[in-house]
């Protein structure tokens, strides 16, 4: 179980997260929605300390990090319990697809090379890239790169995988292949927190929806409730924009 309590973050005087509380159960898929600038990315980055929260507590099962006075080894431990899939993929550019997936297994998990390789090959096959093991990121399409990114995250066997708009940098025709992979791993019971603007995807894959605005959680609940009968006016307005958009695109 992942638990965020009172997470705050300010960039200078600009308070971007104003005390976020969130609980994610094991195996749950949480989608975070919200307008641009509402702090979704910042929240996700706080969870693995790519951004340093100014206050609050992050806990994963028994393990807790107090953001006021985090120990270096706690930050490190937190990062090993989480994995991230980036909007811009951020694959290691000088490593092949296979090496990208192996890197964490060998360097962080200290797996023997052969074992790491075998596991990595399996994962790349799972995301449909069994034939691209030796390709460098520059030789892969965006969709393929993002699937390597997902395999890299899966390899670490984390307690939670954080996705920051995993498809928003992709050409429309490549979005489907990445969503298909996420859908597949969601079914395997891996805990995930996904920031996305793909409303229908969120509705379909997530067990829990969080709507954020202005650095705070405005409303949360099961997809059915949030999409069909949101309590808050702001949620309703936000979703209306998307449903009318998709009405056109059909």
């Amino acid at each position, binding site marked *: 179980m992942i638990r965020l309590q009172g997470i705050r973050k300010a960039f200078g005087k600009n308070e971007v997260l104003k005390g976020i509380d969130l609980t994610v159960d094991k195996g749950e898929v949480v989608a975070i929605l919200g307008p641009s600038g509402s702090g979704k990315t910042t929240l996700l980055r706080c969870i693995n300390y790519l951004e340093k929260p100014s206050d609050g507590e992050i806990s994963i099962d028994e393990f807790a990090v107090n953001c006021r006075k985090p120990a270096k080894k706690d930050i490190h431990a937190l990062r090993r319990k989480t994995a991230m899939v980036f909007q811009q993929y951020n694959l290691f550019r000088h490593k092949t697809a296979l090496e990208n997936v192996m890197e964490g297994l060998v*360097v962080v998990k200290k797996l023997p090379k052969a074992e790491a390789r075998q596991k990595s090959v399996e994962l790349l096959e799972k995301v449909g890239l069994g034939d691209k093991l030796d390709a460098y990121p520059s030789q892969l399409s965006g969709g393929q790169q993002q699937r390597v990114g997902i395999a890299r995250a899966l390899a*670490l066997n984390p307690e939670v995988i954080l996705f920051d708009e995993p498809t928003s940098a992709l050409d429309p025709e490549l979005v489907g292949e990445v969503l298909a992979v996420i859908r597949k791993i969601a079914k395997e019971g891996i805990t995930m927190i996904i920031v996305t603007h793909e409303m229908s995807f969120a509705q379909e894959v997530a067990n829990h929806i969080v709507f954020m605005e202005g650095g705070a959680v405005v409303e949360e609940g099961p997809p059915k409730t949030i999409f069909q009968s949101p309590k808050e006016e702001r949620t309703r307005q936000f979703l209306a924009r998307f449903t009318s958009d998709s009405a056109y695109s059909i």
Partner: protein
Amino acid sequence: MKLDFSFIWTACVGLLPAVPTTLKITVVSVLCGLAIGTFVALCRMYRVPVLHRIAAAYVTVIRGTPMLTHLLILYVSIPLVVDGLADRFDWSFRSAQIPMIGFAYLSFSITAGAYLSEVVRSGLLAVNKGQMEAAHAVGMTTVQGLRRIVFPQAFAAALPNLTNSLIGMLHGSTLAFTVSVVDINAQAEILATTNWKFFEAYLAAALLFWGMTVLIERLSALLERRVTRYNRGGVA
């Protein structure tokens, strides 16, 4: 005046014993300079308290003054310091025991460190910030991320500039003659005066330097092709 071609050849052979000296000075100062430069660049990039100010001052002072001046200042100051300390603490060691080439190593390393810190810095800046974030995200420490992810890419980006610096230092190493180190150039001077054939001796030195420079350029091109393999799409 007639050019004595056969003496150019003789001089080239006569200069060979000095080649290792030139190479040693060049390699030692570039390697030490690279270590200093990397440390300085990291101090400045990560804004390490106090150290980053010292690092910035080091770079402006050293780059703002000629390499020959560094050598001469160290050459006169180190003996004063060493002998002063020796007197005070009753050491038997004397500055006269420092080999001349030691002054060249030290001084040129300091010079190279300042220039190379900028080369390293631009290499590091060429690496996308997301690379270190991804390294952290897979659970690496900052040191692991630097070593395994950032440095290899920074090295590839900095290689052309590193090659330039290496060649610059190869040629700059000739200044060592001012502290009586017999490098290729100093040896050419000796051959020139003893045989009264200046032009030929200097030409021979030029040929040797040119040869070494071309060699460095070739090796660098080969290395560059290897380390930037990942950047050229469409090979697979």
